[in-house]
């Protein structure tokens, strides 16, 4: 199956949801309206000519000075057609996206990581809590306004551990 075709099929099926199709270095990126994300993804997985059965990765990017602030990126692969596709959508700070963890179980942990690192919430996620950092950690490190060294870099370790923190 040709690469271009997947984006075209998607455009036909969801003319209102597909915002743009980009080609860069031989990779196709389809920008999708966040409200229709779930429908599009369900179709991508189950659609007869699509069959993107492997959710390789799911991540976010922080464009701090743009609005809406975050971009969500989904990397899909179809084992039947050997085809890759990238879906992206925008989400505002404090906003929430629909979870995909019931479509692909892989999204469960990946969405937790995005929540941990960016603070983006996923409505309908069964167990949305931090995955890599401590429960008491304040802030979301991969946001552009979070300093690389954190806020307590120069303090001795024990003050870090024993300072009472308000869980987020």
């Amino acid at each position, binding site marked *: 199956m040709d690469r271009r075709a997947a984006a075209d099929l998607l455009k036909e099926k969801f003319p209102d949801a597909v915002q743009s199709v980009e080609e860069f270095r031989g990779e196709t990126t389809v920008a999708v309206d966040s409200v229709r994300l779930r429908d599009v993804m369900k179709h991508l997985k189950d659609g007869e000519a699509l069959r993107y059965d492997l959710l390789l990765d799911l991540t976010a990017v922080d464009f701090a000075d743009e609005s809406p602030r975050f971009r969500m990126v989904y990397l899909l692969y179809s084992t039947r057609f050997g085809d890759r596709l990238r879906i992206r959508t925008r989400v505002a700070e404090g906003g929430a996206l629909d979870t995909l963890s019931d479509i692909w179980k892989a999204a469960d942990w990946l969405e937790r990581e995005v929540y941990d690192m960016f603070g983006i919430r996923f409505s309908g996620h069964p167990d949305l809590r931090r995955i890599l950092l*401590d429960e008491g950690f304040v802030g979301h490190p991969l946001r552009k306004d*979070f300093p*690389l*060294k954190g806020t307590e870099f120069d303090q001795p*370790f*024990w003050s870090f551990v024993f300072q009472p923190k308000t869980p987020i």
Partner: protein
Amino acid sequence: MGITDLSQDALQQVINWARKNSVWPVTFGLACCALEMMVASSATYDIARFGAEVFRPSPRQADLMIVAGTVTKKMGAVLRRIHEQMPEPKWVIAYGSCACSGGIFQTYSVVQGVDQIIPVDVYVPGCPPRPEDLLNGLIALQEKIGRERWGLRKLVSLPRGIHG
């Protein structure tokens, strides 16, 4: 000859000799350096030549903690607890740049050197240090144990330990 007939110095020397040649490390691999620690225990480098081949899974049976790898803040409290579970006398080798000083990871989640949590006896820098470096560090530790005198070895007392 009873034990009281020995001079305190001679007794100390016997004890030191026994201690330094049977240092049992706790299995405590954190990151990349743990692989080199495993290699040091394999046939090529054979850490058994120095009496330290008995890697104990339980800290309660170990004398030496080889902190091999990056200590994160999430791991820090666990590490401290494991160190406190080890019976005295106990020693610590900080193996690798991350354990010595945080290494290249000057980030929000990494403890900048394990000596912020537990007292370190020997620092072995490198990213990762070769297995020979671990053996070298072990020999340095053995020399240090050999010089120990009663009463001079301080018990671990960092502020606000987990157990009081």
